[in-house]
């Protein structure tokens, strides 16, 4: 039995095809978000990679910010539920999931059986989100995906405010103008994100093990900074970016 999960985020689309809710047949990540060709592309790529037709997929479930905007599916569920289910599939020991998405940050609490017990989400503010990192990368003229490696060369951490993305952007420009090293500035940006995210996680409570999901989890600098703020190891699965799509595919299997 084949199911597909399509996670239509604000900055990227991820799709996954599962066989019998256990085996990953195909995965696709397209760095284009809702309102673009991204969802259709991620959808088609996963089908091509699995070598199956749409008609062979028994159920397709959407999730993510753009889950209401794609009509070739059988249903939708929230990204909160899907990330919880997806991370439990990837890392069953996890009880606290931190999902840093393009414009949302979520802290989820799971039961021992993987059920979503509680969650907290950020307000309408880009500080502490993937968008924050994207804006800062743009100001520094580096690629967002290169920020993690860049921060590894830091010798000190430059203090950057996390109150507001626009204020922080001005601070980064000011620091660049003062000749601060990019590596040190990047480390400061990661610390800024981590502090903002940690304050949200503390609201929901921290229960071991803790995992980071979403595309930002691929940034090693953010993972290190978050572990330091939470004073706890933060697990990252290689498929962390796919967690929402995996959760959607698992829910699709459950609904059959």
């Amino acid at each position, binding site marked *: 039995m084949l199911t597909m999960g399509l996670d239509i985020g604000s900055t990227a689309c991820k799709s996954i095809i599962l066989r019998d809710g256990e085996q990953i047949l195909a995965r696709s990540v397209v760095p284009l978000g809702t309102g673009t060709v991204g969802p259709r592309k991620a959808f088609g790529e996963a089908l091509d990679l699995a070598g199956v037709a749409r008609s062979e997929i028994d159920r397709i479930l959407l999730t993510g*910010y753009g889950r209401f905007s794609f009509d070739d599916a059988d249903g939708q*569920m*929230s990204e909160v*539920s899907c990330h919880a289910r997806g991370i439990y599939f990837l890392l069953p020991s996890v009880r606290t999931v931190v999902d840093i998405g393009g414009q949302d940050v979520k802290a989820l609490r799971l039961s021992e059986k993987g059920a979503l*017990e509680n*969650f*907290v989400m950020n*307000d*309408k503010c880009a500080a502490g989100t993937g968008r924050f990192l994207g804006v800062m990368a743009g100001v520094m003229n580096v690629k967002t995906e290169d920020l993690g490696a860049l921060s590894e060369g830091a010798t000190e951490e430059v203090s950057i405010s996390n109150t507001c993305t626009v204020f922080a952007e001005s601070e980064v420009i000011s620091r660049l103008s003062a000749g601060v090293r990019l590596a040190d500035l990047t480390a400061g940006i990661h610390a800024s994100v981590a502090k903002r995210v940690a304050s949200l996680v503390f*609201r929901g409570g921290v229960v071991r093990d803790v995992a980071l999901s979403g595309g930002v989890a691929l940034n090693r600098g953010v993972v290190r900074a978050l572990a330091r703020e939470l004073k706890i190891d933060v697990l990252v699965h290689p498929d962390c970016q796919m967690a929402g799509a995996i959760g959607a595919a698992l829910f699709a299997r459950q609904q059959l």
Partner: protein
Amino acid sequence: MPDAMPELEEMLFELGEVASHPRRMLRQYLAAGKKVVGCMPVYTPEELAHAGGMTPMGLWGGQVTPSLAGKYNPVFTCSIMRSCLEYGMSGVYDGLGCVMMPMLCDTFRGMSAGWRAGVKAIPLVPFIHPQNRTDPGAPAFLTEEYRVVRALLEKHMHCEITDEALEKSIEVYNAHSAAMRSFASAANEHLDVITPAIRHHVFKSALFMPKEEHAARVLAIVRELRKRPTHVWKGKKVILTGITAEPEALLNVLAENGVAVTGDDLAQESRQYRTPIPEGGSPMERLPMERLARQWFDRRGCSMAHETRAARGRMLTDMAKETGADGIVVCLMRFCDVEEYDYPMIAAEAEKAGLHCLCLDIDQSTRDNGQSRTKIQSFVEMGM
């Protein structure tokens, strides 16, 4: 109004019209020669205006992106205050004889200065509720504040407010509060009819209608509800707390996800009606101005009224248990520090009681509710 609507639905539709068109109501009152007094939220002693023969109207702003108000109110302040000032400065509130404004939080202090500077055509009647509510001198202080309010109303509105008239107005307001409590109770038996938005309409319309008229309509609605068989709600139920649960689109998201509202602690809704104006014990306490002032000291579980022991969290969990609610939705007004301070205690109390606590960001100046939709849907999906 749609044709052939049953009596209950017709009455609910009419209150929905009132709640959605306060400006239209203001124009009607002015055309009828009434003197209208604006009442800023909350705990404004409307009874004084009512006793003077005036028509009090609640001022709760609206969905607008302020521009003029930015001259006096920073962006990082409560959107109700900002939109009220915007409406004052742009002429939307023209026709009001004056505006009563309580200094219940720091934003109000700046707001009063902004109003005086930016809305010169509508005189301001400011007053202060004492936050130290256990000080023996506090009731006398508030009574004196209300005397000043009465004198200013008489001056600006060219009327007289007698003790006898105030006594009658107090009875009208107490009867109205009782009617609102009856409605809240009856609504819970008919959650198929009283959707979150309709419940909100019934409460919000009270802000723009004379209380005796509104109470009569609400009691008629309660009678019609009680004629119908009780409805068993199969979806989730929640308690709302906060300043407001607006915009209405947010309430519609609750309904779309099968969530009913079984109680509220919203400043715009039930919080105003749960504390009667006391009768008073001694002859002095039975004087109407004293009675009016003493209501403030009986109020419990409000972020704007200081309490030595925070009672709000427990009050909400008790309300949830009584009404069978699955969770508490904190409608957190953006940049409202007094509400922000209460949130961790509410969340902790909810967790202790085994209830989920959902926090929604409230901001009148935005129409996007994507994040709230995700939070509400996730709440419904919990346990799947």
